């Protein structure tokens, strides 16, 4: 999809393989598949070049880099299929992988609904590879970390976090002529600032490291850590909450696997018997859009089908599911390009979520709140009730009491037990949606939300 100018050999140890190299590798595996007797062969190639600098107690304590390329082969024979993955790239090892895949496939009964592999597809172009990110050095990361740590020392605080830079590429192809490649870069800076018993946190993530300012994030976390000291204990009960985008992201992330057609088929989705009904507030609209400027990720799915933009929720009503080829055929629909690599039992899921958002600023949400809580982020979120989508978890790294339109003090962290469905019926205000990153769910484009009646059930010791 994106121009590849040099091969791995040309660039030495620190560059991705060229598209030509990927294509050659793929053709080798497809040829071996044919020779071994496979009716069809699919190949996935995934290459990663990542580096991560980790700091704590105001200094770097871990600093790592990795490089790996894997080949994953799926053969198809007599309505049977299986996958074998290896990172041994010599021809004998690839032949062994192909033969193992065939052997695995033949060990099972026929799968009547298994589809032949798709033919060549057309893809919308995306550009998410940024040279300045790919070229970021360990020394440059260390210098940025040093500055953040110096700020912590100056403020009497303790900093911990990561600075990541990396590049990856993936390709999928098959013996029917399908061939798709994608490459992207990623830079990420996350920082926790501790002051006495209080902590706060900020994190950013972008394809282009120039869009990431570690010092701004460090300053934000530092300022909030100072505000978070002397936290008082409040009674656990229902509160109006203002969730910052990272808190929204980590909580709603658990909802979207239920938008898989296979999950609904399996009756493990909270959308069973609820499609087309007013499940959320009318101010909630959500789509899955791999082409949104705030998104990263390949424009094709695990079978190489182009990702479609899908309107999942329209004014509070769940309207559409996402489909792999297989679930689409069962439902009489068209695949939406959201399938996982086969074989699998989960089917598909939307992975590029975009909320429509609102127009309020965080400051306006605070100003409009008579009594409530401002939540920086959430932690250790787990599903308590799969149909009502009740999630439990803790607040973390900055919980603040809002009174009469102003942040007045810090509060001790709460445990919540809250239905996400109910929560999205009680959204009073939203900010414009932004690309957000958290720890419990994948990145999304989400707003900050002011929500009424959010259920906290217990309080912890800090």
């Amino acid at each position, binding site marked *: 999809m994106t121009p590849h100018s040099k091969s791995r050999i040309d660039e030495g140890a620190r560059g991705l393989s060229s598209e030509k190299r990927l294509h050659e590798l793929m053709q080798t595996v497809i040829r071996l598949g044919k020779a071994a007797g496979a009716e069809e062969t699919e190949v996935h190639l995934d290459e990663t070049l990542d*580096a*991560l*600098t*980790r*700091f*704590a*107690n105001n*200094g770097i*304590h871990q*600093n*790592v*880099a*990795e*490089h*790996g390329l894997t080949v994953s082969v799926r053969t198809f024979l007599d309505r049977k*299929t*299986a996958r*074998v*993955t290896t*990172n*041994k790239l010599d021809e004998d090892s690839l032949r062994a992988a192909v033969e193992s895949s065939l*052997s695995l496939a033949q*060990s*099972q*009964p026929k799968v009547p609904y298994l589809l032949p592999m798709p033919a060549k597809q057309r893809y919308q172009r995306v550009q998410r590879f940024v040279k300045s990110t790919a070229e970021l050095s*360990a*020394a440059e990361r*260390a*210098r940025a970390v*040093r500055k953040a740590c110096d700020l912590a020392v100056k403020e009497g605080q*303790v900093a*911990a*976090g*990561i600075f990541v830079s990396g590049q990856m590429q993936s390709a999928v192809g098959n013996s029917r002529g399908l061939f798709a490649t994608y490459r992207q870069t990623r830079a990420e800076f*996350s920082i*926790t600032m501790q002051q006495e018993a209080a902590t706060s*946190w900020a994190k950013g993530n972008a394809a282009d490291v120039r869009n990431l300012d570690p010092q701004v994030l460090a300053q934000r976390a530092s300022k909030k850590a100072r505000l978070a000291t002397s936290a008082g204990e409040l009674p656990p009960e229902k509160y109006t909450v203002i969730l910052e985008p990272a808190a929204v992201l980590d909580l709603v992330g658990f909802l979207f696997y239920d938008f898989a057609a296979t999950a609904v088929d*399996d*009756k*493990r989705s909270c959308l069973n018997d609820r499609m087309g009904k007013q499940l959320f507030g009318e101010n909630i609209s959500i789509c899955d859009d791999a082409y949104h400027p705030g998104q990263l990720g390949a424009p094709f799915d695990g079978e190489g089908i182009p990702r479609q933009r899908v309107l999942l929720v329209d004014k509070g009503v769940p309207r559409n599911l996402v489909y792999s080829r297989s679930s689409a055929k069962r439902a009489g629909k068209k695949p939406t390009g959201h399938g996982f690599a086969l*074989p*699998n*039992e989960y089917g598909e899921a939307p992975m590029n979520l975009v909320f429509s958002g609102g127009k309020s600023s965080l400051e306006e949400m605070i100003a409009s709140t008579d009594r409530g809580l401002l939540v920086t982020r959430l*932690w*250790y979120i787990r599903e*308590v009730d*799969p149909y*009502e989508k*009740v999630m*439990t978890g*803790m607040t973390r790294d900055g919980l603040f009491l809002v009174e009469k339109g102003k942040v007045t003090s810090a509060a001790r*962290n709460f*445990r919540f*037990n809250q239905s996400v469905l109910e929560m999205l019926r009680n959204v009073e205000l939203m900010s414009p949606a932004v690309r957000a990153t958290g*720890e419990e769910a994948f990145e999304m484009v989400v707003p900050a939300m002011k929500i009424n009646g959010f259920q906290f*059930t*217990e309080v*912890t*010791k*800090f």
Partner: protein
Amino acid sequence: MYDLATHALDTARVRGASYADARVMHLRQRDLTTKNGEVGTLAQSESIGIGVRVLASGAWGFASTDRLTKEGVVTCAAEAVKIAKASALAKRSDVIMAPEDAYVDSWQSPFRKDPFEIPLETQLELLLKADAEMRRVKGVTLTETDLQFRKIDSWFASSIGSRIHQRKVISGCGIVATCYQGEEIQKRSYPNSFGGQYALRGYELVEEMDLVKHAPRVAEEAVALHSAAQCPRKNGTLILSGSQLGLQIHESVGHPIELDRVLGQEANFAGTSFLTLDKLNKLKYGTDIVNVVADARLEHGQGLGTFAYDDEGVPAQCTDIIKDGQFRGYLSNRETAHLVGLARSSGTMRTESWNRLPIIRMTNISLLPGTWKENDLIADTEDGILMDTNRSWSIDDRRYQFQFSTEIAWEIKGGKKVRILKNPSYSGITTEFWNSCDAICSRDYWTLWGTPNCGKGQPMQTMGTGHGASPARFRNVRIGTAFGEK
């Protein structure tokens, strides 16, 4: 493989490293699943590569590669040194490592049946049969089964002269029946939830679990939960099954004792710990009957935390964590041991793969057995709730406040299990909870449970840990908060 590792160590030394170790690892995995009577996942994978860790200019660097040629390994080691020197630009102090002897050894975990030698047809037939047994029960809407096998070879070499090869064989299996009815989804799992039981064993584990025999009961219980009474909301007596207690140990003892977490090294992601250094040998963690060890030795059992040497070349050990209710020890490595006055690492450095840095991880963190027979424990309970099989788990980032829910519970009245309860949950504060333990069942009921999915570190690493536990009783526990009075 040692030749490649030696090239890495030589390169690191020449480039200025004061210490280096290298791990060549070869990982093989097979995954089989079924869903509703059909094969779901059918996959195998292997991965081989080298990770090189160096200490240069007083700071750490790590690099890894799958290019297992002399040139690839030399480049990798040189990069590790370059990274270490970059780390030194923002180091807090020079790394000090506790002394350790050099070892030359080869070790293989014991198993009777190599799972990779068992025909796939046999393995699939077992899963499909268990799946069919669950589907025979009316009302079941989703049936799932799984098998997972791993074979991990590692060749460790260090600049102090260690050369250690270890081979570990891991097996896991489980079944799940789900029932969607009305406006509720209920499920039951066996032998445990989230993948089942895992151990450092061969295919004999799968045979012993007898998935087919348990399949009808699991399915019947999933359906029966829909007509069961709601678990009440109250403070009361709680008995936990061994598998649930295993996860309770994992979250409220295993994680807080990780010394890297205590020292703030995980503050940005996994969190810190309430077990600050001043609490060692002073905190009353639990009642006098609570004894917890971290034991990686084979004689403790074939758990996911069993090995001969950790990934820093330190031999497996048994460390007292809680002794007669008192907090006695942390999980440490060569870098942190001196900070708690230890002359030697407790041997808990573990890595997920060749491309990950070893970090402090749980080994087998086990509650030692007590004296009670399970029937006597129930008979001795006038009014209580017995909870089994984890459904959700969550704890704050300093490991004080937790909440667990389980798949099923039984109400106990007058010393007898009288009825099933649905949607059970309990919550509390770690030390208050362990100080409410008044009975632990004996070794006859003790199982070394495997937790295959423990996440920690940046980049994230998934590690298997072991937790020996037998059923135990806790008084005055907060019950039923998660679901309220549904």
